[in-house]
């Protein structure tokens, strides 16, 4: 107990947190048009890429080829990208990366569109999604994070937006389940289940046009339909966490 008090009084707080970061897979850094092509990509979504942290991945680099981290990171900077670390790599690459102030990440998993979710301990009390809806391939990184569904979600269907938001333009039937690591937006009636902040993000929110849900949950805190107050039923609401409590408020602008 005294340990905890001491920790609380400490001049800092150390907490784990999740971030979605882009990985830049480098296969040929010496290609003439490397930075030209990259700046072209950045120009497509300048706001998204502005000062965005990126993790380098050199697994596709031909073996034995040297890599000048310092120079490469400086060039990335000129494009507004901030290299923050190296993913995987050989021992030499890792040492070189550490020498220029990059962190070394263990070999992470990319976010393929149809991969089952890792089950974070923070949400162990919530049923885990088993089925993941195949999402169409997207070009831009931020599109990869958002799962956009343009139809009604029928009973028994389960959708999971891994590492991002889930947007449904339609209604969600009883017995359907929406799961997202980020926010959930339903531009119709929400009659099924909605679980936002599945990976533990307590700032995630649920928005819907008509709240008739079976269950809503944010970062593992849930409420079933029986416990929903009459005043918010069938209303346009947003659901969020504040001070560890689940709030359901009418959307007022």
């Amino acid at each position, binding site marked *: 107990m005294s340990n905890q008090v001491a920790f609380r009084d400490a001049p800092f707080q150390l907490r784990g947190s999740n971030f979605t970061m882009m990985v830049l897979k480098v296969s040929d850094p010496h290609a003439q048009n490397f930075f030209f092509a990259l700046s072209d990509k950045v120009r497509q979504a300048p706001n998204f890429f502005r000062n965005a942290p990126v993790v380098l991945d050199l697994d596709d680099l031909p073996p034995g080829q040297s890599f000048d981290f310092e120079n490469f990171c400086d060039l990335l900077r000129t494009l507004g990208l901030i290299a923050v670390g190296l993913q995987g790599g050989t021992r030499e690459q890792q040492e070189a990366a550490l020498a220029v102030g990059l962190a070394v990440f263990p070999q992470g998993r990319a976010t393929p569109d149809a991969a089952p979710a890792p089950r974070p301990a923070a949400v*162990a*009390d919530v*049923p*885990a999604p*088993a*089925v993941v809806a195949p999402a169409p391939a997207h070009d831009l990184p931020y599109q990869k994070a958002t799962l956009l569904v343009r139809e009604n979600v029928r*009973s*028994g*269907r*389960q959708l999971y937006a891994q590492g991002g938001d889930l947007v449904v333009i339609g209604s969600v039937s*009883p*017995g*359907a*389940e929406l799961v997202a690591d980020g926010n959930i937006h339903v531009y119709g009636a929400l009659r099924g289940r909605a679980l936002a902040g599945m990976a533990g993000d307590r700032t995630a929110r649920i928005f819907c046009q008509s709240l008739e849900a*079976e*269950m809503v949950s944010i970062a593992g805190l*849930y409420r*079933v*339909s*029986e416990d929903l107050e009459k005043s918010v039923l069938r209303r346009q609401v947003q659901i969020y966490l504040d001070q560890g409590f689940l709030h359901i408020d009418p959307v007022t602008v």
Partner: protein
Amino acid sequence: MAKIIVMTSGKGGVGKTTSSAAFGTGLALRGFKTCIIDFDVGLRNLDLIMGCERRVVFDFINVINGEARLSQALIKDKRVENLFILPTSQTRDKDALTEAGVEKILNELKKEFDYIICDSPAGIERGALMALYFADHAIIVTNPEVSSVRDSDRILGVIQAKSRRAEKGEEPVQEHLLVTRYDPERVEKGEMLKVEDVLEILAIPLLGIIPESPAVLRASNVGMPVVLDDKSNAGQAYSDAVGRFLGEKIEHRFVKVEKKGFFDRLLRRTA
């Protein structure tokens, strides 16, 4: 010793879930601690019939997968003491039912409950097989029409071949026939099979005859097991069936066309 009862039929839409809800509630009303399990993974309805759909957080499949404890998934009925419901998942399919998983949960339930009712899905595939595999008793729900009788005959064959009792060479599963949606008027007109005809083909002891009744649909729509509607003849017939199951001698009722008096006719017209 806890008994496991499977409510099955082969055919769909004959009243398995209605019967599971009514029969389970009837057992609980008589003081037996009863749990009704929905085995219809992916097409769950028991929670609606029992009126507890607004309280489902975890389900049978979550417990099988170790994502929740049994006590977290069991829903206690608010009307009847001793009655619990174990809802199923709407988003998974029948493959989620593993033999080891189902057995583990049934064994856990057996420690606490007197009766465990397994509400089987239609068909003779995995869901139905898992529902009947561990059964001590089987209640075969049959409508008085040929296709339902044929399917019931088929499921009886499955029980006799594929249940655990059959596989282990133990005492066979005790079979009971529950005829539902019985309409004496249509039987009299020859539009529906007589109970005797059904019994002749299936040749198992008759547990009860549930008359066709508007009370059944009414009860389903408000999420109340029909046995709680003790004014309805369907409710009374279910209550009788529970009594017979427990060994009481009770005459079958609602089998003959009721003679209607003038006022009854008048009331029926206007109803």
